[in-house]
């Protein structure tokens, strides 16, 4: 069982070992002559223009939050689409995936209800001007 994972362990060991080995070799045989320019963080070869830690505008968090909500909406569509045939059937599906009993609007209604709630949220954030940058 666990021996199946042995090749992966070997890959990680080789990759990690090689990295560490190269660092040690460079430390041992490479000349070390630091100067201020060399010690700067590398920024595409140009001189550093801003501190590396940037404080993001708070607006970004709001956009990220809204994005998350509507992204999850999309994520919910997949399982629903996969299960749609089951959800729309009064009985259970047969082996061929055909519905043996009558159809029901249940499958459609759950998604409509979900989207209606989400649409409400969209209307709310829109009206409250959360989608505007200023």
């Amino acid at each position, binding site marked *: 069982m666990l021996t199946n994972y042995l090749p992966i362990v070997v890959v990680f060991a080789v990759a990690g070992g090689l990295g560490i080995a190269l660092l040690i070799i460079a430390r041992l045989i490479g000349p070390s002559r630091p100067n201020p320019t060399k010690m700067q963080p590398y920024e595409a070869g140009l001189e550093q223009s801003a501190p590396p830690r940037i404080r993001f505008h708070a607006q970004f968090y709001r956009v990220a939050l809204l994005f998350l909500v509507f992204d999850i909406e999309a994520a919910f569509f997949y399982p629903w689409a996969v299960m749609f045939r089951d959800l729309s059937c*009064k009985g*259970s599906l047969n082996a061929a995936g055909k519905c043996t009993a009558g159809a*029901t609007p249940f499958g459609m209604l759950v998604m409509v209800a979900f989207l209606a*709630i989400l649409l409400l949220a969209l209307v709310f954030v829109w009206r*409250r001007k959360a989608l505007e940058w200023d």
Partner: protein
Amino acid sequence: MSSAFKMADFSFAAPIIFVALWACVVLLASAFSTKSSKLGPLTAFGFVIGLVITGYFWTALEQPRMSVFSGMLVLDRFSLFLDMIFLLAGLLTSLVAHGYVEEHGFAESEFYAVIALSVVGMMLMGHAGDFIIVVIGLETMSLGVYSLVASWTDKRKSTEAGLKYFVMGAVASGFLVYGIALLYGATGSTRLLVITSRAAAHIGDPLYIIGLFMVFGALAFKVALVPFHMWTPDAYEGAPTPITGFMAAAVKTAGFGLLVRAVSTIFSGESFAYGSTGWINIAWMLSMLTMTVGNVLALRQTNIKRMLAYSSIAHAGYIMLGVIAIPVLGLDPSAVLLYLLQYAVTTIGAFGVVAWVGRRDAENTGLEQWAGLGARKPAAALAMTIFMLSLGGIPPTAGFFAKLYLFKSAMGHPSLLILVVIAAINSVISIFYYLKPIVAMYFRDAGGEPIAEPMRSSSLSVAITLAAIIVFLLGMVPGSALEMAIKSTIGG
């Protein structure tokens, strides 16, 4: 798949669905109206309709227990009675908040919709037949209440209280979910009744016992039992006053409702309940500690909100006594339900008066600021007197009758009798601090300029009057409410 869900299930969940829809209506109304002047009454109106629907379900329910959504939700008179407490609390809170928010001018428009949505969470908790619904309900309620506590964004204390409550509450939720995971690992189910039926196979199973105790600890946190009470005074003091009342009334009721449901299902196993390490023994100790610590610390408070916060801890101890009596004496939960009902109304009323006394830039929650209020505002002072007497358990108020009924029903067992005696002594101690505001209002002279000048708000007056009438009626003619509580049994 669809055979597990029936369309008819939706009609049985009508009270919950209605309140959720009404929250959407309030949210839309808040998005389209430029000023939030009518949102409080609009929300309150929704709660009134919700009360009517729930009341209809309570009378029309034919079976003692209905299982809907393939056992996810439970419909019995116990949960419907709890629903009515939540809706009543929501109704009074939105009316009190309407006046308070107008006066202090702080809340964003989603304030009322969040109140309604947390009530939805509480109702889900009351109806839960499965741990999944427990978690969803608890989170819906808690996330709403966290943001309500922190909703006064201009006030540092409110933000601080919200953050503290959030961090502590998240830990408790973590415990709950971890406990549920362990129970699922041991029994292979999240359904309360299935876990209960498989309990016999797990006597002495550490996974099972640790899981149950984690669930118990999380609920003890939500209802603020000592030693899980540390967050209470800070969160209660920092929150906007109507929300403090809402927390003390509705959140506590939701926690105890779930605890009673657990007591009649997953906590009912002989080996887990009894013996020196059984939960009843531990709950006995927690109950004793809670009422004593709550009352003793309340004695020293000069801030009314903080005093009422400690008083709510003490009341959690009394209610816990009633919860223990249910399995020990084989009682129905009527004593607990009646106590929760009267406590919810009384405490929202008391916080309502506290909210009433504050003006913009001056909340006036210090006892010394209440001096001479009895002469200047006799109506407010009278209402506060009724609420304080009810909290102290003095006739002819609701608090007296509910406490009497609770203590009397618990006396049948020797070890519970000791707890009842401790509770009675505690009640006597508590009268001392409940009399403090009364003394300040009537017997202390403000001298010179009046310090606290109550705000003018018709909806706040309506809420306080309504609460005072309910408290008075429950004390004078408790018959029909008691009968209703006795009929509200846990089905199955």
